């Protein structure tokens, strides 16, 4: 999809994983590694990030705001949609026109799909999508990829299981797409009613993704490099009995991990509820907390790149 005219990453919007090539993704991960290895405290001094959360998400907001502060920039923040102009009926377009005057870069989360794309078209300053409804959350995808590369020392040709709610879980949609770009073999493990939706499968077929569908993870465990777990919400099942039937199948316990490879790692976008048993936290396979922490470096990299302070 068309972007603002840019050279490299300077001034570029970060809206959807579909806007990025393999090379560009790899470049972002490389820059993130630089910030993980060594802090750059003065890099964005004098730069202001407007953090617009039209829908609450404390984790994502903290991660972005901390990333900006750690690079020496500052943050102005709209943390609560209830007190914001949008609840008084102001259109998103108008809100963006006002806010862009106060800042150099905008991060926004919004319940409507395409909201960040629209904001980017209106704003002269770059916009980072912190989640637009069920559509995209590209910085989550970048931090997932960063964590996968960090644990596997490569991104190409991996065996990755995406497990849980694949229908409503947008993180698995973008991650499946990005991993397919790198030639991964994908295993979609979910109850039938929560499998990958058609529009996502269409995107995957377009890039000739390799995948298979499964209802149970057991038989796959010895093949996998990455187990990407997501939460299954009770509300997704019209029939509570149906939920109780599947509830136990997708819980990771130490017993399930008996046959895994040495490089095997478990990721989860967090928060978890009961998908990962607490006993698993002490195994060498647990990587979800480090994964969440990696969000900080990936977001620093994106901020620095689009502000033209990293090359």
């Amino acid at each position: 999809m068309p972007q603002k005219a840019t050279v490299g990453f300077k001034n570029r919007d970060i809206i959807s994983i579909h806007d990025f090539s393999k090379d560009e993704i790899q470049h972002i991960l490389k820059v993130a590694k630089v910030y993980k290895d060594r802090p750059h405290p003065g890099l964005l001094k004098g730069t202001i990030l407007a953090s617009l959360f039209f829908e609450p998400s404390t984790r994502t907001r903290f991660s972005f705001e901390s990333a900006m502060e750690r690079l020496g920039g500052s943050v102005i923040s709209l943390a609560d949609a209830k007190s914001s102009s949008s609840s008084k009926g102001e259109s998103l377009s108008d809100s963006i026109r006002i806010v862009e005057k106060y800042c150099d870069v905008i991060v926004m989360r919004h319940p409507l799909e395409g909201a960040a794309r629209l904001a980017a078209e209106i704003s002269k300053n770059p916009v980072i999508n912190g989640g637009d409804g069920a559509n995209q959350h590209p910085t989550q995808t970048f931090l997932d990829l960063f964590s996968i590369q960090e644990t596997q020392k490569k991104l190409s040709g991996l065996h990755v299981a995406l497990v849980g709610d694949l229908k409503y879980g947008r993180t698995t949609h973008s991650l499946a797409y990005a991993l397919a770009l790198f030639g991964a073999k994908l295993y979609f493990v979910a109850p039938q009613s929560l499998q990958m939706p058609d529009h996502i499968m269409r995107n995957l077929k377009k890039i000739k993704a390799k995948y298979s569908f499964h209802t149970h993870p057991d038989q796959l465990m010895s093949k996998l490099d990455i187990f990407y777990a997501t939460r299954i919400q009770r509300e997704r099942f019209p029939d509570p009995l149906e939920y109780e039937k599947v509830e136990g199948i997708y819980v990771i316990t130490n017993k399930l991990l008996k046959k895994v490879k040495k490089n095997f790692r478990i990721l989860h976008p967090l928060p978890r509820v009961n998908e990962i048993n607490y006993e698993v936290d002490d195994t060498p396979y647990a990587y979800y907390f480090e994964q969440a922490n990696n969000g900080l470096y990936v977001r620093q990299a994106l901020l620095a790149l689009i502000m033209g302070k990293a090359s």
Partner: protein
Amino acid sequence: MRAFRVYAIKQGTVIDHIPEGKGVEIIELLSLRKWKKVVTLGMGFTSRKLGAKDIVKIEEKELNQDEANKIALIAPTATINIIRNFKLVRKTQVKVPRVIEGIVKCANPACITNHDHVRTRFYLEKAKPLLVLCHYCERYFDESALTLL
């Protein structure tokens, strides 16, 4: 008899092979109610290809390619006949444009285009059967999901 029912026009455009019932939508789509000259709508003609079809005749107006392409979204089978001095001078098939702007509504209720002041935009993914991609919410829609704005 046929010549009488489908009378010839001297100058203008005959839109033929419109799927039955879509003729009215084409009149709306091209804002032909505002056209100062004669517009004729014929409905329910027998067609070998379609079973039944509608025909729209617009006197003293030659449709341009953009207008013809808009028609493709709701009547992909339509043909455009340009008439000058009772003679057919050009006959073209309609073709869905690669970028469809401000013509159809996004069928995703959670799409920003259904809530904010913004022109819809879709990319043509496949012409037959029609499949388009919303620029904003990144969802795909087929012909049955598309409605005119």
